[in-house]
């Protein structure tokens, strides 16, 4: 038995006689034709192609070299480092905060590079920023903002009332991102002499101030021209000195900064680490000093090493909303929706994720106005869930098939767990994990889904339940009325009360289950101070951050 000839995979391998045959043929040919005849020009063709390919290749690489390779300043034994490196997760694809959605931009730019008319603190309350104070008219229709003096942008231009009104008017005129949240604004007028800006509304809006802490209130330099996708010129304590899409942002202290939030650390490098393991390794090896967020399940090496690291979970407004299509073929049946809510063991979900998250029984998280603990409405109760399913005509022997559609960024575990929990009450859950863009199209835009899961990390977003055209397909006139009243309310207490009432109604109707209120866990090397723990995935002021070795 001879060894198989030739390695496997070499299916075209020749055997002896074949090679011999070709050799014979070639010998014959060599005898007939001069050997060097046909090859020289062949070589020329190859050479030309290779040279051309290299030339094109070099040309492609060329623009890369203009990205300055300024070596990172290595802290020289001093006490306070002049560079702090921070690891975050979701990277912005560009810096155009007026056009591009996504909390990654809010997180890194608001309060650091751009400043708003007003800002918010780590308890989600409105605080002064560019405006040092404001007056509100009795009817709630006129807001007058008194601005700080001697403000400048990082390019040296003065920041005036004119810039403020221009920024907001541009937003409305060009319908930049979030412009619809200012739909009740009638006019924005600047008074340069009095150094004030007056906003007039057509209807009262108790959310206005909070709204202005976000993108709608940001102030841009109306005289500056720059490529907003790759550069940013604002009035904040930091400037963007280098931006690599999907990878990193280097912030430098703004030497022309005007206010009280002066940067304590010269350079802050933000590194985006999409891969959780890579992120953990980066913190372990000292490549980054802070990691926000860290996956709770991966934090154990740091929690157990409290001598070198601090791990802390912060409050946030992230709601993992598992929405049931209220107009869906099967999910329009309230019993099915309620059964699902009873069937889900929220504590188990939270435990499997490491235990930091908080149970949430309704649409409003604790940091938002109108919060009330609603977890008692639908406690985990498998028997009740089964009974409801039975009533609706389904059982484990005759299960109802539903499809859960969610974006791949949330991992596959949640889907597997939900499938397992719902199987027990007679629901055969098909889990469809898709790209976020596909989710946007199928679920968000076309409302073509049974069950959806998404992390709604927005704050003050109850309006979603009062808008029947939103992808939830939830239409409850009472809720809409209560929300309208809450918005028109002129006192915060009144507003909060109305919102709480509406939220309870929503939760009772079970148009969704709120799996949990995601709390972001942050880990840092001891020696780091001033890093915000609350809300840091949407709001991350870095001026106070220092690192002492």
């Amino acid at each position, binding site marked *: 038995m001879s060894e198989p000839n030739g390695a496997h*995979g070499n299916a075209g391998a020749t055997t002896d006689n074949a090679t011999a045959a070709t050799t014979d043929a070639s010998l014959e040919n060599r005898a007939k034709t001069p050997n060097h005849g046909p090859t020289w020009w062949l070589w020329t063709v190859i050479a030309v192609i290779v040279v051309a390919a290299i030339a094109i290749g070099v040309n492609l690489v060329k623009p890369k070299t203009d990205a300055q390779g300024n070596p990172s300043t290595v802290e020289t034994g001093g006490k306070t480092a002049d560079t702090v490196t921070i690891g975050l997760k979701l990277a912005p694809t560009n810096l155009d905060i007026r056009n591009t959605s996504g909390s990654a931009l809010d997180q890194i730019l608001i309060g650091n590079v751009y400043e708003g008319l007003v800002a918010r603190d780590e308890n989600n309350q409105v605080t002064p920023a560019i405006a040092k104070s404001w007056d509100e008219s009795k009817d709630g229709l006129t807001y007058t903002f008194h601005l700080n003096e001697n403000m400048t942008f990082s390019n040296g231009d003065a920041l005036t009332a004119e810039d403020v009104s221009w920024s907001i008017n541009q937003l409305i005129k060009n319908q930049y991102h979030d412009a619809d949240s200012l739909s009740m604004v009638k006019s924005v007028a600047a008074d340069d002499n009095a150094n004030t800006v007056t906003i007039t509304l057509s209807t009262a809006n108790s959310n206005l101030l909070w709204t202005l802490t976000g993108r709608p209130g940001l102030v841009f330099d109306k005289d500056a021209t720059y490529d907003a996708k790759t550069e940013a010129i604002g009035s904040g304590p930091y400037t963007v000195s280098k931006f690599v899409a999907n990878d990193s942002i280097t912030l430098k202290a703004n030497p022309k900064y005007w206010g009280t939030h002066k940067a304590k650390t010269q350079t802050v490098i933000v590194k985006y680490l999409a891969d959780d393991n890579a992120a953990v390794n980066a913190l372990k090896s000292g490549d980054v000093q802070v990691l926000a967020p860290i996956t709770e399940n991966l934090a154990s090496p740091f929690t157990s090493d409290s001598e070198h690291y601090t791990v802390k979970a912060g409050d946030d407004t992230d709601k993992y909303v598992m929405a049931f299509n209220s107009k869906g073929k099967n999910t329009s049946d309230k019993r099915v929706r309620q059964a699902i809510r009873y069937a889900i063991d929220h504590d188990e979900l939270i435990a499997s994720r490491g235990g930091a998250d908080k149970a949430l029984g309704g649409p409003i998280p604790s940091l938002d106005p109108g919060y009330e603990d609603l977890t008692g409405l639908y406690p985990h109760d498998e028997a009740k869930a089964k009974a409801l399913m039975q009533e609706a005509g389904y059982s484990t022997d005759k299960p109802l098939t539903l499809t859960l559609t969610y974006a791949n960024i949330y991992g596959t575990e949640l889907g597997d767990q939900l499938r*397992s929990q719902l199987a027990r009450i007679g629901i055969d859950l098909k*889990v469809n994990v898709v790209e976020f863009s596909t989710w946007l199209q199928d679920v968000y835009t076309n409302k073509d889904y049974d069950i959806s899961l998404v992390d709604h990390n927005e704050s003050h977003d109850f309006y979603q339940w009062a808008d029947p055209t939103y992808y939830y397909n939830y239409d409850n006139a009472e809720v809409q009325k209560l929300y309208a009243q809450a918005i028109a309310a002129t006192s915060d207490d009144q507003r909060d009360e109305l919102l709480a009432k509406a939220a309870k109604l929503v939760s009772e109707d079970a148009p969704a289950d709120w799996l949990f209120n995601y709390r972001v866990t942050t880990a840092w090397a001891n020696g780091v101070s001033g890093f915000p723990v609350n809300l840091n995935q949407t709001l991350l002021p870095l001026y106070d951050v220092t690192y002492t070795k």
Partner: protein
Amino acid sequence: MTSDKTSRTSHTAAQATVRVNANVPAGPTAAIVLHGMWRRGEGKFSIIVLGLWLIVAFVSLFWTPQPLLATDGYHVWATPSAAHWLGTDGTGADVLSWLMAGSRTNLLIVVLTVLFAAAFGLLLVAAMVARNGTLAGASVVVVDALISIPTVLLALILAVPLGASVTVIVVACGFGYGLNLARVARPAALLAARSSYVEAALASGASGWWTFVRHIVPNTLPVLLVQLSLSAGTAVLAESGLTYLGIGVPSGVPSWGHSLATSVKFINVYPLTVLWPGLIVTVVVVALNVFGDVLRDAVDPMVNAELRDGAAGADCDGGTLSDPLRAARPSHTVGQRTAVSVRGTADTDVAGRRSA
């Protein structure tokens, strides 16, 4: 004229094929082939591994140590214990059960991919050796152009409309491996197609398709076997890679790639879980790669003496078993070693598997 001689032997071969298929029961031949494989260490290994795979896949349909859907959020990433021999994963589900159930998904993928690749590849071969010169020329050009598109790229594009699914793996891999197959099998097929017995068959009124299936495909059999078993191995590797990239087996469906991909995320804290799925994939892929080789040799009467002896016996029934295979053997090896054939093999072995 040398062609005289070839045509004569080929002629008998062709006739023999018909007779063999008519008269000799498949049983004894299969036993001989299997025995021929079993006698070699590699063969034993691959038969055992692949056999185990089939058994486990079958058993998992009815029984796994723990139900697949038994998740337990309070005991995630548990270390091996009596209840969970290989521990639990990130949802608290039993790793062993998922691996067992995964074997049937992988089996399905492999079988479908191989079928797709064979069908598509042979269709291309048929086009490439067609009498119609334009069709033949055009299909050669198309294969040449398409073969450089990597499987991953194709899978990425397919995954967008289809989402993560078994279909993506099967179509992307089947398409790529089919192209390779076509390229590698073309020389043998061409030789057979240009032989005078095919001409004779056509002249006697046989349809083109019938002639192709009857006379040309058997001549490419040795290439086909090796190529397809390689494709099977590559498909297993591709599954793990594509699933990791999120465009392979969808979430919730057990597969080895799924087990591997989910454990990857937690190697820092729970490194052990990652061992098992990778180990299984490696062993199975080795077995699949070896299988084609061993099978080719076992069906080759030049190598498998038993088959030769058996054939002599079968001769009494009026059929010569060995002849078609004898005819097949030289034809696949004659394929000129052109740049094309080298590319073909390179693509399959190095490139194809890279998709994983």
